[in-house]
């Protein structure tokens, strides 16, 4: 009995080791991305077309990705961080320059999303997906239409809604409601936002993370501050939800493709970025992930009913007061302090 177990264990181990070590001379490209944020079938297409093998790894937050890249020890050829993190990584010289002449498909990227503040010349990053932060609500439960952040301070909605358990996103809501920039470095404005959030706190059902979708679907919450991607996932299954972009403005976010400093396969990385910018590949990703693509060729392939929805491809006029997060540098300490005071109150 014991011997049989031992033999079986050793055999599985040997089998594992042998299947794990198929070595070949192919170029291997290490791709570091958010979990579940790409259609993995395109890796096979890429390998067939170029002979380059993709080694895929995932992270859950920008900060985790930053730590891994900054600490070194493992080299990635491609990563997909968000706007403010790209700004920070450029400042810290953690990114390779991207040679746009090697990326002919860059013309497919919507010119609205080129040259954004965090990387003004697209010298380091190429847009992948974008989205917004807004309010989603259940029209069966909330009868008065919502169009502003003010709804989250309305006592009629007391105990019905959730906020995002994320420092900058929640402070952004208060800053925008008060008419300030969400990238403010003015302490008085920040204090005002703090007081607004403390005043709002008795009305908030909870500060939540990724379980917000389940809370909405199970009707535990009737309204929530969410990222557009989450709103799109909920609305496509339950059409009685509505996603609104508050008129005071909100956060517009971008996830761009970058090449980290120290990447070994820079040419292959350029090939992969160009591949991602192709209309049909962009479509596969957009279709799988459900977020809004930055690619005009992909937009042509999409279901036309998506164009013009608030949660996927909103009308440009609605985005008038929207901003992109910038890296606050050392001022982040003030945000940290304000956030602690809000949470402790």
């Amino acid at each position, binding site marked *: 009995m014991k011997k049989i177990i031992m033999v079986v264990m050793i055999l599985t181990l040997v089998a594992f080791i042998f299947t794990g070590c198929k070595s070949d001379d192919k170029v291997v490209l290490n791709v570091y991305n*958010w979990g579940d944020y790409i259609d993995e079938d395109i890796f096979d297409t890429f390998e067939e077309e170029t002979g380059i093998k993709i080694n895929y790894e995932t992270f859950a937050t920008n900060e985790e990705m930053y730590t891994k890249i900054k600490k070194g020890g493992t080299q990635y050829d491609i990563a997909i961080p968000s706007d403010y993190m790209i700004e920070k990584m450029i400042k810290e010289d953690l990114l390779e320059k991207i040679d746009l002449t090697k990326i002919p498909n860059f013309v497919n990227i919507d010119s609205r999303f080129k040259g954004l503040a965090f990387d003004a010349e697209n010298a380091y990053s190429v847009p992948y997906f974008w989205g917004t932060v807004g309010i989603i609500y259940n029209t069966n439960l909330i009868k008065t239409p919502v169009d502003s952040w003010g709804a989250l301070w309305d006592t009629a909605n007391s105990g019905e809604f959730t906020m995002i358990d994320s420092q900058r996103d929640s402070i952004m809501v208060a800053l925008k409601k008060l008419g300030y920039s969400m990238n403010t470095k003015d302490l008085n404005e920040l204090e005002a936002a703090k007081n607004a959030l403390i005043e709002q706190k008795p009305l908030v059902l909870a500060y939540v993370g990724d379980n917000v979708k389940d809370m909405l679907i199970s009707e535990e919450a009737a309204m929530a501050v969410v990222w557009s991607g989450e709103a799109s996932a909920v609305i496509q299954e339950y059409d009685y939800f509505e996603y609104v972009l508050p008129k005071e403005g909100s956060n517009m976010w971008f996830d761009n493709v970058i090449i980290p400093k120290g990447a070994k396969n820079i040419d292959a990385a350029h090939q992969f970025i160009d591949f991602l910018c192709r209309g049909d590949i962009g479509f596969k990703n957009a279709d799988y992930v459900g977020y809004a693509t930055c690619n005009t060729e992909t937009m042509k392939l999409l279901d036309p009913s998506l164009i013009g929805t608030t949660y996927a491809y909103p009308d440009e006029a609605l985005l008038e007061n929207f901003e992109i997060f910038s890296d606050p540098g050392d001022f982040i300490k003030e945000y940290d302090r304000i956030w602690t005071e809000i949470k402790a109150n």
Partner: protein
Amino acid sequence: MVTKILNKFYTVLIFGFLYAPIAVLAVFSFNDSKSTAKWEGFTLDWYQSLFQNSYIMKSLYYTVLVAVIAAIAATIIGTFAAFGIFYMKGWKQRAILNVNSIPILNPDIVTGISLMTLFVALNIELGLLTMIIAHITFCIPYVVLSVLPKFKQMPAEMLEAALDLGATPWVAFKKVIYPEIKPGIITGALIAFTLSIDDFVISFFNTGNGVSNLSIAIYSMARRGIKPEINALSTLMFLTVLILMLILNKRTKIEEI
């Protein structure tokens, strides 16, 4: 009578607490919707897409591979360490035991980051090898702690007696000591295996080159929401363990007869 009912109630309560979450998880793996909150009908789609999801399957492979290797290596190293520690005297033994407990009390993140810093300083590229080394490292103290009590229960003169009667040290270990401490070794190996499968923090910082285990894969899905595929996977893993336990129980019963 009342105590009997209370007893039963208490048992039900305990098992309810332990198994209700798993039951909910299993039920929602058959839910015909991405939601894990609202029942929309029966489907086996998630099981199908689970086996087609190459990333999850690859992570499962790495998880099992690392857990098996780490458990075996940590058990061997830990058992011999316990052997040595038991035959140490006085302050030396206490000192070594304290050193052994520090990694257990240390937060995972400290262990994770310091191992990573070490690997980077030594210029070892992060990947499967570093992940295995890290797992072996944090499993060893637990093995030592589960094997050591078995040594203490054993009459201290056993080894000397065996050596007196002509056994070589290796034979003495194999024939005399090993049977005495076997339950401790098995417990240690199981703890090591479980800890390795469970670990997220240390694995995260010590992996690279496309190697990720299930905890990393699942955790990184958080931004887009955990998919019911993970429920399906967890259900299958739970069933596998359950069946293994049943088989083992039956075997031991037959052996006892």
